[in-house]
């Protein structure tokens, strides 16, 4: 079984042509109604097989007959035991909604398109980050040089204050109205 991504609280896997959805429901306090609501949501996802992953605490609420009758699998995760703590209590049955070959191609094409666009986005954001980092470093060097020059020139106080206020504060603080109000106090 191959990991194929995640969405919300659902992990997706590929098992051959089967798409397997594993819904995660980890909570300090389990609610019976919530548990079955999640099972219902999982069945509506259109996956070939669905599993619900829970902590051992949830077992009190699990009705194995319901799970088996609906072909929903149950995975119990005991974090204290690490990797050994993952146990498949009930195996899922493949659900009747078989995927037609045509649809598979369409899905493959859509997935490919999505991956390409995602890759591009990651590339762009990486470029943006590197650019910002370099700009920031250049800005710091510039500022340091400027400070040295200013010290040499020993500019009059008015000019110095102007130079300071020209530096734009970071993320959001500059737009905060309180900054203006506080600055006007003396």
């Amino acid at each position: 079984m191959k990991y194929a991504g995640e969405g919300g609280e659902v992990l997706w896997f590929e098992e051959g042509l089967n798409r397997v959805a594993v819904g995660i429901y980890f909570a300090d306090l389990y609610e019976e109604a919530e548990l079955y609501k999640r099972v219902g949501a999982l069945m509506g996802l259109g996956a070939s097989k669905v599993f619900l992953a829970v902590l051992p605490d949830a077992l009190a609420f699990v009705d194995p007959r319901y799970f088996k009758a609906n072909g929903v699998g149950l995975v119990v995760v005991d974090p204290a035991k690490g990797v050994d703590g993952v146990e498949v209590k009930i195996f899922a049955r493949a659900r009747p909604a078989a995927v037609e070959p045509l649809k598979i191609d369409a899905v493959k094409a859509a997935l490919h398109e999505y991956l390409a666009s995602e890759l591009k986005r990651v590339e762009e954001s990486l470029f943006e980050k590197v650019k910002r980092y370099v700009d920031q470093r250049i800005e710091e060097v510039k500022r340091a040089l400027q400070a040295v020059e200013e010290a040499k020139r020993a500019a009059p106080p008015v000019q110095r204050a102007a130079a300071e206020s020209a530096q734009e504060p970071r993320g959001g603080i500059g737009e905060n109205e309180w900054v203006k109000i506080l600055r006007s106090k003396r």
Partner: protein
Amino acid sequence: MISDAYRLKYTFGVDFGTSYVKYGPITLNEPKMVQTRGLFLRDLPESVKMRIPPDVLARGLVVGDEEVRKYLSSVRDVQRNLKYPLKDGVARRDDEEAWRVLKELARYTLAQFPVSDPEFAGWLVAVALSALAPDYMYKAIFDIYDELANEFKIYAVTILPQPLAVAIAENAVNCVIVEGGHGNIQVAPISFALIREGLVALNRGGAEANAITREILKDIGYSDIAREEYAVEMVKRAVGLVPRRLKEAIRAAKSDPDRFVTKVRLSPVVEVEIPREYAWTRFLIGEIVFDPNHEEIKSYIEQSRLRIENAVIGDVTLYGEMDVASAIITSLRNVSVEIQERVASQIILSGGAFSWRVPPGMEDVAADSVTRVKIALEEKSPALASKVEVRLVSEPQYSVWRGAVIYGYALPLSLEWSDTTREGWRFPRR
């Protein structure tokens, strides 16, 4: 000369909350947190003493979640030696141990951020304290940082009230901040500054919701669980509901109790069930925070099972029975008539006592805090209710810290601390 660029790097915010201290420099996205408590290293067996670093042993006290946990099992009398210095955000003047813990926390927070920059001239520390903090607390906090200036580089220190910090973080210049903590609720009107005359405090909060949960658990037959604060807190969070209107909610719950029956699993072996005949009491848990003036809640008070009474901290009276909407209106009445409307335009709720959720399908009888306050205002003063926008802060835990660092960044260093205006910077003696 301290430049803006410098202040964007070396402004340090500390929010002394009753349960947690939130702290860190302005450069962080989120502050670090440490529990507001200290463990005195007394009554230690010799064998344990040998394992403790000498400087820690000399100070006789540890703070920090990990550090406290490390020594907790070695200290014999935990009850006596584990000290929570703040009650309702205030430390008593003569409580020497509390002040030692606060000093140790101040040291601990600064020590987490060593600076090696040769241009570092010292931190600009902005401390947020409860709006109820009396003058002596301001003085004592300044003294603490004066003393720490020998150990750490501290350029200047300022103190601001927590509601003002929330307003700054929310970028709200005219507003009413309603801060609901564990022990009390503070209503603070703000117009370009905190309006102290309008400060109204209620001697209720999350703790009262816990207290009534405890009594309900005892009635249902879970006296053993009711003894444990942690369990009570879990039950409160899981089953507590805020009613839109208590009478209607109770009527609905009594006519169709099955809809409100619920179970909470506290551990693999403990489960609490709220049975049909008690399903309606779920609404009392949330309602007590907003308005305890109901027969159903009064009966607990009359039987001396709950205590809701006035208290005095410094020069502020904390009202026990006043409902939240009345507190907001009382607070606004103490604001100059000319600006009342402007101040009332935004009511901002913050703090853990206002974090309630509505389970799906119960929207007709239960409400979240914002809706509950709106409904109460509509009942008490429709004219006011039509003009206000009630909302919850975006980051309940961090907004005070965020406001504090912005304040520290913007307040001009030329402004020296004044005891009358409670504004400005204090420069530690070196």
